[in-house]
């Protein structure tokens, strides 16, 4: 029996051939007509997707279904993006920011919007996975075919300002282009329109190659901003700070371990501040059946978040003790507003 898309298929309700424009039965009507039916509601809005971020076209399940997909078009005066390579802790950081918002505990700001709610909810669920299901875990590292953007929209309590924060998850191809050519791919050129940056450096992975890659990332940013010195504020986040401890300040850490990069910052960034951040507060190694730590592909021990169990009967299962998660963002926003860091 021919399928709905096969030649010779007849509509079982009216008997007309497949594709006949007179067939009005929506589930089996003219395919071309269904695909060409415009989605209602959003044309002409500033939320039009730039070509680089467009998702594959999907046919509507009925002619008047309304497409409500998010669009990567920053709104408002405060536009912030995170920068950092895979594994630097960006995803866990935004996941924890979202979790703070879910609990209503991000100081000074409240949740306003997210075009990535499904992804953020997935990260939150990983961080709060019950012990019976394997316990808390970091968001899985996936190699991406296309750069995607995790998004949070916030509103400041004080003056109701709207803020868009984007956390790009670069595709392997886009990362490769920055690394090989020193330039952001054309499809990411809108990064130049951002007004503030959060740059992530993994405290546990400061190899020479990674330092070089990070510096090249900054150089690429300067290139698309067409400047040799960045006026926009930059929050430099040393992630996984729980592994460093409090014996040194983040500034001291950068000077001691990344002296060249620290000098580069001084020469090229007009407004920056360094923060030591731990999104989950503590981690523990994953142990194999032999009781030894399991190692990743590069020989590094694999870890999972190690929150304390919560004793609240109706509260979350675990009590995380994140460190400084909100400070880089709050500082950056204060810099953008010209108000200085709130006391």
């Amino acid at each position, binding site marked *: 029996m021919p399928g709905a898309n096969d030649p010779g298929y007849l509509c079982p309700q009216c008997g007309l051939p497949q594709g006949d424009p007179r067939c009005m039965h929506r589930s089996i009507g003219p395919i071309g007509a269904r695909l060409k039916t415009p*989605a*209602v*509601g*959003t044309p002409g*809005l*500033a*939320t039009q997707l730039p070509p680089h971020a467009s998702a594959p076209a*999907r046919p*509507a*399940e*009925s*002619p*008047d*279904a*309304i*497409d*409500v*997909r*998010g669009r990567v078009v920053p*709104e*408002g005066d405060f536009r912030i993006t995170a920068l950092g390579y895979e594994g630097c802790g960006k995803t866990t950081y935004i996941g924890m920011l979202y979790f703070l*918002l*879910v*609990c*209503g505990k991000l100081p000074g700001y*409240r*949740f*306003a*919007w*997210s*075009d990535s*709610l*499904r992804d*953020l*909810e997935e990260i*939150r*669920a990983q961080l709060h996975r019950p012990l019976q299901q394997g316990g808390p875990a970091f968001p899985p590292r996936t190699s991406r075919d296309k750069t995607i953007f995790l998004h949070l*929209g916030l*509103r400041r309590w004080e003056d109701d300002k*709207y803020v*868009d924060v984007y956390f790009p998850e670069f595709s392997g191809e886009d990362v490769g282009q920055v690394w090989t050519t020193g330039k952001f791919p054309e499809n990411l050129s809108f990064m130049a329109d951002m007004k503030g940056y959060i740059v992530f450096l993994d405290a546990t992975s400061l190899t020479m190659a990674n330092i070089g890659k990070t510096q090249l990332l900054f150089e690429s940013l300067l290139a698309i901003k067409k400047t040799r010195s960045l006026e926009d504020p930059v929050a430099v986040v040393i992630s996984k700070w729980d592994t460093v401890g409090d014996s040194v300040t983040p500034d001291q850490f950068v000077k001691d371990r990344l002296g060249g990069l620290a000098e580069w910052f001084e020469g090229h960034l007009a407004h920056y501040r360094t923060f030591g951040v731990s999104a989950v507060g503590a981690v523990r190694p994953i142990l194999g059946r032999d009781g030894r730590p399991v190692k990743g592909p590069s020989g590094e021990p694999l870890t999972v978040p190690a929150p304390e169990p919560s004793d609240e009967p*109706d509260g979350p299962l675990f009590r995380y003790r994140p460190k400084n998660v909100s400070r880089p963002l709050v500082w950056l926003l204060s810099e953008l507003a010209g108000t200085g860091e709130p006391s």
Partner: protein
Amino acid sequence: MRVGILGFVGAGKTTLLGALMHHLARGGGKDSPLAYHGLEGADSFRDLFGYADALERGGWPPRTSTSRVAEYTLQLRERATGIVLELKLPEMSGELVEEIWRTDRIPGEISFVKDYRGLLLLIDATVIAPERTVAQYVHLLQALKRAQGFLRSERSSLPVALVFTKWDALPEEERDAPPEELARVLVPLLLDFVQSNHSAFKVFGVSAVGATDALGKPLLRDGRLKPISLLAPFEWALEETRRVAQPKA
């Protein structure tokens, strides 16, 4: 003026409409500025009177079928002006909310929700909603705002109320606190979203039946339910939708 009633699964949408029908049909709400005006469609007559009947017999309305897509219409009239407020109760199953969440599309069969001029979102005050469910309803409100053509950074003029149901079943100290405080504890993400995105919002605590007996069934006194603040969200919605509809001077 069309006001939609949406709600988490088990929040009591059907009971609220049944109780409202019962309240109005038995001559309640005489002190309210709103009066019963009528119903629209055979489904509305059959089902809403059916729900009211179940409550009057001391039982609960049957659980809503999840396979249907329907929209009941109950009309209220403002006594002073004669303006009619249409309450729309879409049969919006958890599966449909899940589908919007998964596909970022409002299916064609329920695209009428974008035409609402006010929204009441019902939440059970006695249970902690799972984070994922809260996120799904935030996503649904985002979808509606986007379908109505608003940018995410601008506020929608659509008034939205969070309505906590089963208010009578809360411990006394919680019942005495303002409903907004409960929202801040139970659904902070949703409260933040509504405050950030809608120029008119309010949180209500209502009880459709007022009290339950020892068996957990609706408690009738002299054949009547004694609902708590039942009409308050509707009165507010009428006021707000009318304010938005008025041309600016």
